[in-house]
């Protein structure tokens, strides 16, 4: 696995930042955006260069994807799987909500004044289309198996774990690369601002005064194989649970109905009781409505003592990459023996009855649950575990 976010490039940098309880959020100076908000911008994305052969795919989203894939010997792990199973037997199931839409945003400023046409260099299939992420990564990793992009807003890269798990179980593929890549763009910055969902400060999940999200960007990838094929001591995917709120397109169900159903479904899929869960990585965006609804949903299922936290105060809300990024954070917590505390929660919301960690806590955790919920009332919970 590997992850790159505003906390740093690769797992080591992320672990250092989490250990130091350091945030990666900074005042928004992205592109031409003029908004009073903070963002989780990854340093060095602009200077990343795609090889000329892959120039068709050049955009911020794919530069970030390439930067992320180059860390933690991830590409060599994929190469090993490709040799072992064959390039047609390794699936690729990725997620994005932004794709490389920034390229189209810029292209619309450069339309031909006479004809209205977009500039020649805009490659719709290379950057704009959601699938362009998988098309690019497929070439970079030299894979030839089944591939798709899931785009369900902020639950996208949690859902790909379930997709891969099913196709591996059915023998359609022997292994799969899953993950999510989302990058900063004007659509999400101005869009969340229009909904009054961006905070003017670094986001404060579960704080009584929280007032919105900080948008982040990230690339996170995981190589999934059958348990019997994996190296001993590797974290396992235990179960994925999903649901829909059927309530509102951009507001969660106020009682967290869908969130509870997704967590229940993940536990049922894994055949693991709620009492076995040692840590919950909350969706915890820092909006009034999400944290309130999620708090109720978690409290309805788990003992009040179960440690919970949102890591979005450190990484920002990385939208379509959040699911995969936070599964990786959970796996690191299981491996490293420490649970990450949630940043910027100075005064825990009194309505929150959870054991919300505000500082890192040592723990020999074996089972962790990661929540990802999104616009469109889509909910996905991923349960992972480490064998003793």
């Amino acid at each position, binding site marked *: 696995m590997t992850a790159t976010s505003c906390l740093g490039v690769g797992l080591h940098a992320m672990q250092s930042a989490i250990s130091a309880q350091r945030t990666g959020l900074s005042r928004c100076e992205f592109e031409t955006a003029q908004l009073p908000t903070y963002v989780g911008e990854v340093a060095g994305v602009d200077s990343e260069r795609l090889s000329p052969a892959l120039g068709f795919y050049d955009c911020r989203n794919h530069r970030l994807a390439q930067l992320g894939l180059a860390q933690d010997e991830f590409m060599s792990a994929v190469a090993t799987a490709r040799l072992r199973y064959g390039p047609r037997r390794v699936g690729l199931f990725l997620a994005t909500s932004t794709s490389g839409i920034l390229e189209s945003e810029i292209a619309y400023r450069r339309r031909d004044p006479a004809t209205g046409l977009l500039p020649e260099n805009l490659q719709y299939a290379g950057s704009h289309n959601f699938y362009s992420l998988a098309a690019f990564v497929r070439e970079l990793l030299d894979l030839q198996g089944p591939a798709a992009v899931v*785009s369900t807003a902020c639950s996208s890269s949690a859902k790909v774990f379930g997709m891969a798990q099913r196709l591996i179980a059915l023998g359609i593929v022997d292994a799969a690369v899953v993950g999510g890549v989302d990058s900063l763009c004007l659509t999400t910055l101005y869009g969340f601002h229009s909904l009054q969902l961006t905070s003017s400060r670094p986001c404060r999940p579960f704080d009584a005064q929280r007032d919105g999200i900080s948008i982040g960007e990230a690339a996170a990838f995981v190589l999934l194989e059958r348990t019997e094929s994996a190296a001993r001591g590797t974290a396992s995917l235990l179960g994925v649970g999903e649901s829909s709120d059927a309530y509102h397109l951009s507001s969660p169900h106020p009682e967290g109905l869908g969130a509870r159903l997704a967590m229940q479904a993940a536990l049922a899929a894994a055949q693991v009781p709620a009492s076995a869960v040692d840590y919950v990585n909350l969706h915890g965006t820092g909006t009034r409505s999400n944290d309130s609804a999620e708090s109720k949903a978690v409290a309805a299922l788990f003992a009040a003592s179960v440690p919970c936290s949102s890591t979005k105060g450190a990484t920002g809300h990385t939208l379509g990459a959040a699911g995969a990024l936070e599964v990786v954070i959970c796996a690191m917590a299981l491996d490293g023996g420490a649970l990450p505390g949630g940043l910027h929660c100075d005064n825990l919301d009194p309505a929150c009855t959870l054991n919300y960690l505000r500082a890192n806590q040592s723990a020999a955790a074996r089972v962790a649950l990661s929540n990802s919920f999104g616009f469109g009332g889509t909910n996905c919970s991923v349960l992972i575990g480490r064998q003793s």
Partner: protein
Amino acid sequence: MSGIAAVALESLGLLGPGLGGWPQARALLRGEASYTRQPTLIPAPTTLPAAERRRTGRVVHLALAAGLEAIAGSDTDLTSLTTVFASSGADSQNCHEILQTLASADRQLSPTRFHNSVHNVTGGYWSIATHDLAPYTVVCAYDGSFAAGMLESLSLVTTSASDVLLVAYDVDYPAPLREKRPIGDAFAVAMLLRSNAGPRTLGTLTANYSDVPVDTLPSAELEALRLSTPAARALPLLEYVATARAGSRALEYQREGSLLVEYLPCR
């Protein structure tokens, strides 16, 4: 490794240029009717509350109409029906409007425009319209999006033994994106898939990833329709369903591989 078990196809819905429902498309695919290409007519979704109906665009109305046709008369429980949406683009008109606003002096977006920009706008409104608490997903594989949705749907039915509604749809882009991504008129196909065959089952489906070249259609106008929009890449399979013909159909999926779908009609 069991592979994908035979999944029962119960019913379909279809909207396209000159095609106002599955019965009309079936007659065309059976050679019983000639094809008159006309603009796709998309009915307003009566299942959506009036406020939501006003806030939604053609792509949502298209996907809902095809999905509702497929489930009409079925005894599947709509409030727990897993759904899979497959599309190359999302709401193309909405995307264009956002890009235009962001390129203007005043970048203030409408909140409704923004939340309608997500690829899963169809799944979100479907779940609201049908009070469906079951999961939905939205997949994209460019021109192979139908195959990606089909593989996802069949794997869901096989592993969860639950019913799945697959809805594949695409609408055309307005200029100037139209020049970058030419898509034909709106097209959607929906299939209700069930783990157990019943009296309404039309046939069974299985699928696997293959290196068989993509099947084309003998009729020039149907082949043109197949190529005009990603959702219409389903047509070679629909031809076998319409004519109750057993056999394998290779559908466009990846550059190096197709999705080989085997169809066995029951009646």
